[in-house]
Structures are given as structure tokens and as C-alpha cells.
């Protein structure tokens, strides 16, 4: 541990705790998931950064969306995201979830992931290298430190709008709303 951080630990232990315990949900979509095994295993060892993959959304607080998202995957992504306990952080990975990437005119991939769930940060590239993931993680630390990684709060506040978008893409959703308040709901 960095000695200079000790002050921070005393000042806001919760933030420091969040920063160094990022549990990433092991959710595979698109080409990008190929980068994840070397990242989390011995080669690049994500655990140095406190990132460990976990199997279920209920134990995780970091959601890496690793590539293009088809309409069918979107349904799973929303369900997964909603099951994660707060505080939770989302990172879109690769150009596909950012703006469609090379699937920009595909009939079946959604182009902008942030229309459906809120995103804390993006990693551009097709495909980003594992190093880029660590850069993103350190950026996420900064955001958490500054109190800016608040996408989950936004989701709560504007849930109505998000839900409306989700329903536009997927039709009637067969699970009840996560929140009953928030933009568009009231």
C-alpha cells in the first residue's frame, strides 16, 4: 500500500474500499472477452489492481461490457446490471458498445449502450489491449476518488427514461421495474 494514501484511508474508507475491491462480473459478450482471460490470469494479473472476476452479479460491482451487444444480449445485460448491488461501476469496452463500431449498420446489434444502461467510462479501440483495461481501472479509481463514478445514481434518478428506452428496443419487459421513481416515472 502506498503510504501517502493513509490519509485518504482515514478520510473516506468507503471510497478507498470501493476502489481496491473491484469485483468484475464475468459476463462475456462480443470479441472483447478474448482479452479478459489473459487480463485476469498470470500474464497480466488483474488482481494487482484489485480486480477479480466473479461468477454472479450479486457479488460484483464492476461490469465490463466487452464488445458488441446484440438485442438479445441487451436483455441479459440489463438483468445482470439490475441485480448488482450498489455501488456499481460499468465500463464499455471497445468501439462497438460506444457507437456501433464496425457493426454500425448491423440489423441486430444495439449501437449505443448508454441509451439503455448508464456507463461510467469507455475504453476505445477495436480491440483494446489488456493494458488499456488497466488504464481504465486507474481512471475509474480517480473517478471514484473524486466522487464522479455515479452512473448507478443516474440510473436510479432517471430510471423511467432508461426503462422506456429498454422497452423500445426489447418490447414489453417481463420483469417489474427496479425503481418506481425517477425521470419519466413521476
Amino acid at each position, binding site marked *: 500500500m502506498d503510504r501517502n494514501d493513509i490519509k485518504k484511508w482515514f478520510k473516506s474508507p468507503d471510497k478507498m474500499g470501493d476502489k481496491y475491491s473491484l469485483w468484475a462480473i464475468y459476463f462475456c459478450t462480443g470479441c472483447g472477452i478474448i482479452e479478459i482471460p489473459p487480463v485476469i490470469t498470470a500474464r497480466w494479473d488483474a488482481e494487482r489492481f484489485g480486480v477479480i472476476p466473479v461468477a454472479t452479479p450479486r457479488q460484483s460491482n464492476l461490469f465490463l461490457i466487452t464488445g458488441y451487444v*446484440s*438485442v*438479445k444480449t441487451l*436483455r441479459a445485460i440489463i438483468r445482470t446490471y439490475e441485480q448488482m448491488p450498489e455501488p456499481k461501476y460499468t465500463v464499455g469496452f471497445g468501439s462497438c458498445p460506444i457507437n456501433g463500431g464496425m457493426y*454500425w*449498420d*448491423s*440489423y*441486430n446489434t*444495439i*449501437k*449505443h449502450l*448508454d*441509451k439503455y444502461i*448508464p456507463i461510467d467510462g469507455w475504453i476505445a479501440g477495436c480491440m483494446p489491449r489488456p493494458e488499456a483495461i488497466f488504464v481504465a481501472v486507474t481512471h475509474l479509481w480517480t473517478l471514484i476518488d473524486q466522487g464522479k463514478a455515479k452512473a448507478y445514481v443516474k440510473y436510479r434518478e*432517471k430510471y423511467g*427514461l*432508461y426503462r422506456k*428506452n429498454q422497452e*423500445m*428496443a*426489447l*418490447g414489453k419487459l417481463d420483469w417489474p421495474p427496479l425503481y418506481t421513481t425517477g*425521470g*419519466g416515472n413521476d
Partner: protein
Amino acid sequence: MISALKNDLESIFKDIQISAPEDDRLIINAQKDAVLTILKFFKDKGYDHLAMISCTDWIEEDEFELIYIVGSYSVYAPAAEDITSDKSGVSKEAAFNGGNILLKTRISRKDPRFITAIPVFENSEPYEREIHELFGVDFKGHPRLTPLFLEREYKIPPFRKDFDTRRYVKDFFDQIPFVENKEK
């Protein structure tokens, strides 16, 4: 090997064109009513593996082309006595494992119907389901032509050449607003 197969085929089936572009590949263009019998012919010969069924949209000719790719795990598998003692160690016959058979047929685009190949190769089920979903070809006798991959309904099946993906993206995905813009 492949030439023997070619001669065999030509003597049995009349209305087909066969070409063998490579030593281990046979391309057969057949009329649609002959497809199942030809598949059966190959199956009886020991071609036990239907690798895939695929479809091509020839929009200018107003036809769909169905392509059956058949291979084999058992036919011509090198038996011990076939492995000769020449320099390479394996005789040409033994090395030949049956190759790939590409069986092509055309069906009308206006009325895209065909019969299922499940009675011959059971694993054609998912392929036909996929072609039904993406090209809108109806396979008679298929037990469940329900959606396989797609989540939404499309007016024109999306793999047809006249499906305008850019229009679709504009009319559908681009219509969904960004949450930030919506608030204003």
C-alpha cells in the same frame, strides 16, 4: 477416388452437373427434387457428417441457392494396410478421407419453400431453422421453425439482399433517444 465417385453419380443421376475443382472437393449442382436422394446416396456411401447447410440470395436471378456441405468421418479412413511404405508414408488413397461434397440447388425466391433434410441428416434441424429465420425459407416437414437467434421481428428476413440494413438502423436504433437529450 473423387473421380470414381463422380462417375458413380453421373451414371445414377441424370440432371446434374458435377465439377471437381480440387482433389478432395466435389461440387454438384442438382435440381431440387433430387437433393434428398443425392444426400441419401452419400449417406449410404459413408458420408456420415452434414457439416452445414447454407443459403445464398441471388437476388438478380430471383433465386435462393441452398448449399449442403457433406463430409465424412468414416469413409476412406486410412486402414492399416493402405498405409504404404513409400517416402511420404501414406498412400494417396489412404490420405484421402472422402473430401468435401458441396451439393447446391436453387429454389424460387418468390415462393421459398423446400423440404427438410432431417430424415437423412438429423442435424440439419438447427441449420434449417436458421435459414428460415434469416432468409425466410420454409422447410416442409420441419418440426419447429421457431426463432433461433433473433429477438425482434423483421418485415423482410434480414439476410435477404433487399433488406436495407441502414434504413433499418435509422428507423429503429437511431430513433431511440439518448437519455441526456431526452431531459432537455
